[in-house]
């Protein structure tokens, strides 16, 4: 069933006009000309601005909130403490939808703290004012009296008996322990019999998602009818609607949530935040619109962060380097509270620590702890970049131990191309893939022979510009998710997606999707799919989304699910429309529907193309209803809710070539090759864009980004001068290729590509840095590999080496 890219391209060209072709995004003109409307561009009469007073302490009792000075400022109308606000939500807390174990500790999380502030950035009071300026001045003028408490900032000491407690009432900082150890004895046995064992510890630093547009909320009450319209820069308007209803007790049918143009999210807008609940509650209570726009520095602490884990990974292997078992103990940082899916994020990687290798014995255990820091939650890749990092770093160490190249150790362990569908030792069934062919392509593209010759030469010359080669072969689980699997993981919702395809009287088409785009180009891709199936022009199709009044059902965009779940729903709804159109055509042609074929936008009886009924005629017939088959409803539209039978499993091999300046510690990515298998591609241009951005985001974790906290819990990196998001100037020149093994899980054979680059890139870059420096004795490198860190690492090795530099 595996086909190469070329064959698939041929198939695509023969059967489709648009699918498989690079197409410019129809979303871009409005974005590039500034016409697109983001939350901050919307205004409503009489709106009030919310300013939030945030804790300056990592852990402190709130002794008092003094708003007198703030109330003197022109435009400030109210100052409200957590206690003042409590009646608005009573006991209800911000939602966590993923109680991963029955005994998971999940302390109540109020939108505004009442007695104890638990992280820098925790809301402790709010100000209402007539302008954003007055709200900011007002918030700055509120005096909060704190009594400092000791803070927990290091996850490895959070479980020590003498550690301070983030939540006194729990008596521990542990939230949960989640094991996935199908056969413990077999794992022990594999380690006992191993010829080689590897045991490593890696740190996944915390990352700040930093989408181009920070968050924003505008809540508008309909006082007469008890309605709420909630505009939010969110990835998940549908989830937000349900959760706002549940949290505030507003009947769900009275709530409309709108996500206008949203400037990226990377997972951080997959949440239900205090500010959304605050603006909604205050708007409903005061009867006026209430809004809030997040500042960039505010976002550093008020929006969730990503990663935050310490990983212990062990491999057992035989003499040839064939891995027989993997054992992982993970320590995950939840931050001060559990946000929407906080506890589930490390577990999304928990099934993938064997990477793309056929490792028969599996042991994974995650312990998650509270700290006095901003909550963590989903960030591009969510669990899978961490898992890939650990296994790919460890495989390189194994290659060294066995004495083979990194590509050889991978080849010896890959799941074989003929093993699919492959049931993994962690219990997943992988759909399709040909990992060896993908790796071979990448190796060929990277000119490894030339690079290795140059690498050897520079080493021999004692050059201070050393070259390193880093591999990362990955597989990820996408297309969240089969609802039954989510049920088995205790997730609080399903994983289906909804679509409606509605043909208008003039044969123009509306596609309504429940998958909410925020930069991915759904409008372009969905219209390509529908255009090809209906044989019409993509410009005759409008894709509607992101407003629960227009698209009432859906589960939104995250986890690389949009195409494989949401796109499949669109595909299937279009099929349903065609089925109905066929009935109408058969009726008009007085033919048997089974004798009809649909070619170039017209139905005709096979063999007699002259008597054809064009799509437009059917659309109009469905509208006039003058002459439809008996009992047929007069419309031409279909709705599909698709629940995927399985995840999809994109995979690939990336190779980074880096040059490390051993004098300054500077790392430059001099070449980057990525070969990815995301199944069939709808729009290769969008695929490339996702890989470019994804790779840079992964390389950013490897080289640049780090949410730095002091020991007492103060965050240091609160602006983009200190928190180093790389720009286009830092981006390597990517060289990309694809290999296609269509997923048998869905009718289009697609897998998803939103997170692949991020998942693959960090281990490729760090493996390359370590490879460059191995002659100096370096065996590991902390992320981010900043010049200072690289220089320190080289120095420490020199100092530790027997007879090393004095």
């Amino acid at each position: 069933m595996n086909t190469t890219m070329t064959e698939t391209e041929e198939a695509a060209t023969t059967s489709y006009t648009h699918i498989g072709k690079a197409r410019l995004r129809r979303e871009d003109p409005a974005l590039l000309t500034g016409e697109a409307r983001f939350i901050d561009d919307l205004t409503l009469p009489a709106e009030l601005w919310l300013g939030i007073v945030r804790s300056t302490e990592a852990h402190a009792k709130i002794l008092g909130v003094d708003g007198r000075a703030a109330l003197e400022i022109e435009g400030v109308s109210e100052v409200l403490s957590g206690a003042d606000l409590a009646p608005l939500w009573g006991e209800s807390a911000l939602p966590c939808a993923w109680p991963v174990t029955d005994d998971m500790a999940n302390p109540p999380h109020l939108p505004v703290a009442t007695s104890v502030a638990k992280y820098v950035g925790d809301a402790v009071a709010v100000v209402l004012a007539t302008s954003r300026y007055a709200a900011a001045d007002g918030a700055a003028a509120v005096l909060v009296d704190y009594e400092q408490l000791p803070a927990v900032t290091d996850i490895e000491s959070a479980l020590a008996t003498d550690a301070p407690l983030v939540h006194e009432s729990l008596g521990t900082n542990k939230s949960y322990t989640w094991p996935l150890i199908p056969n413990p004895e077999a794992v022990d046995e594999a380690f006992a019999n191993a010829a080689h064992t590897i045991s490593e510890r890696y740190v996944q630093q915390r990352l700040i998602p930093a989408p181009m547009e920070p968050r924003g909320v505008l809540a508008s009450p309909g006082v007469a009818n008890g309605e709420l319209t909630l505009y939010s820069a969110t990835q998940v308007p549908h989830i937000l609607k349900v959760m706002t209803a549940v949290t505030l007790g507003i009947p769900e049918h009275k709530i409309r949530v709108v996500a206008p143009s949203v400037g990226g999210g990377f997972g951080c807008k997959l949440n239900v935040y205090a500010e959304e609940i605050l603006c909604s509650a205050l708007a409903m209570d005061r009867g006026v619109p209430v809004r809030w726009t997040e500042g960039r520095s505010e976002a550093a602490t008020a929006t969730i962060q990503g990663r935050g884990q310490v990983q212990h990974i062990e491999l057992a292997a035989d003499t040839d380097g064939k891995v027989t078992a993997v054992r992982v103990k993970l320590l995950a940082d939840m931050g001060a509270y559990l946000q929407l899916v906080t506890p589930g994020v490390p577990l999304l990687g928990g099934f993938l620590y064997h990477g793309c290798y056929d490792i028969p014995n599996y042991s994974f255990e995650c312990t998650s702890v509270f700290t006095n820091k901003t909550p963590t939650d989903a960030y591009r890749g969510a669990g899978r970049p961490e898992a890939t990092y650990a296994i790919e770093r460890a495989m390189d160490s194994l290659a060294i131990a066995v004495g083979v190249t990194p590509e050889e150790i991978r080849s010896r362990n890959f799941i074989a191309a003929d093993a699919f569908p492959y049931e993994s030792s962690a219990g997943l069934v992988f759909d399709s893939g040909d990992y060896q062919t993908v790796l071979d392509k990448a190796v060929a593209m990277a000119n490894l022979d030339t690079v290795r010759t140059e690498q050897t030469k520079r080493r021999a010359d004692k050059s201070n510009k050393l070259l390193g080669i880093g591999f990362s072969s990955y597989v990820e689980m996408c297309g969240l998710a089969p609802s039954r699997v989510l049920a088995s993981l205790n997730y609080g919702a399903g994983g289906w997606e909804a679509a409606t395809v509605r043909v208008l009287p003039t044969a123009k088409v509306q596609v309504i999707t429940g998958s909410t785009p925020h930069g991915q180009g759904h409008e372009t891709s969905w219209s390509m799919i529908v255009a090809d199936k209906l044989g019409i022009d993509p410009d005759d199709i409008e894709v509607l989304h992101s407003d629960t009044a227009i698209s009432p059902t859906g589960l939104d965009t995250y986890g690389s699910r949009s195409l494989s779940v949401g796109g499949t729903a669109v595909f299937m709804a279009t099929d349903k429309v065609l089925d109905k159109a066929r009935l109408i055509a058969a009726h008009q042609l007085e033919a048997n529907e089974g004798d009809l074929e649909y070619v170039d936008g017209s139905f005709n009886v096979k063999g007699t193309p002259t008597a054809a009924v064009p799509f437009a005629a059917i659309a109009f017939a469905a509208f006039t209803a003058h002459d439809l088959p008996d009992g047929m409803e007069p419309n031409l539209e279909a709705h599909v809710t698709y629940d995927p039978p399985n995840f999809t499993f994109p995979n690939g091999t990336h190779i980074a070539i880096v040059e490390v300046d051993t004098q300054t510690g500077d790392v430059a990515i001099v070449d980057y090759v990525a070969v990815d298998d995301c199944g069939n591609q709808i729009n290769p241009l969008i695929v490339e864009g996702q890989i470019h951005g994804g790779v840079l985001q992964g390389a950013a974790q490897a080289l640049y980004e780090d949410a730095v906290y002091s020991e007492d819990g103060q965050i240091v990196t609160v602006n983009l001068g200190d928190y180093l998001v790389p720009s286009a100037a830092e981006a390597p020149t990517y060289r990309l290729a694809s290999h296609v093994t269509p997923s048998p899980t869905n009718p289009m054979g697609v897998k998803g590509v939103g997170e692949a680059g991020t998942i693959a890139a960090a281990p490729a870059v760090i493996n390359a840095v370590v490879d460059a420096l191995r002659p100096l004795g370096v065996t590991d490198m902390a992320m981010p590999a900043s010049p200072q860190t690289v220089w320190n690492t080289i120095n420490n090795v020199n100092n530790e080496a027997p007879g090393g530099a004095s």
Partner: protein
Amino acid sequence: MIPASFDYQVAESPEHAVALLTEHGDEAKLLAGGHSLIPMMRFRLATPAVLIDVGRLQDLRYINATNGSIAIGALTRHSELEHSKLLAQSVPLLASVAALVGDPAVRHRGTIGGTLAHSDPASDLPAALLALGATIVARGPHGDREIAITDFFTGYFESALADDEMIVEVRVPVSTGGWDYQKFNRRAQDWAIVGVAVAQGGSGVSLVNMGSTPLRASATEQALASGASVAEAATLAAEGLQPPGDLNADAEFRSHLARVLTERALVAAGASST
């Protein structure tokens, strides 16, 4: 990220700007390119009550040759230095340093007067001007005065300018001897973690971000002058300095970088002992 409220006035001439400065005293700030001042205001690290906009004084945007030196108007943008043919011939170090400041947007707004008056030890152009031995012309209520650049930087973000003075011109001696600039940073648009400027084959060596002001690497200059090799001279680059430590580099690493970059800059400038 929202500045406190302020009044805004547009200066019609340098004299008008000085008059407004005199009127408002230390409550007021000149606004040139705004690319240092406005970020400070947004972080509320600066809360001037009055902004006096000098950014529209076109008469102060020029690069002219005047017997042996180049006169640059205070409102000249970094991008104008970067692309000036005259500068490329007469003071190539300055043109090339200007091209490394921030990103294109920053270079189209930021001015030479602004970067000097801001006196950030991490800025590129002030250190280059220090290596080149520039002179700063300041206009005050009592007329113009010249300040040698060696006397200009008095402390961390502090200069010899009085509250009622405005920089109107910078004079730079023609300098075509061996030169180089090593800027070490992590992202293209960032300030230097450490920078080293070399002018006139090594007779002027200055350092970026190695102390509270832009600094001459005097020990290196003297060593070169008294016959030390480039490698020897470079090891003295951080001699006697107390560089800052921050997220990008601690003091020890900064000193190390200063030595490495000084050697690279001297080699690139073709420096040798005299």
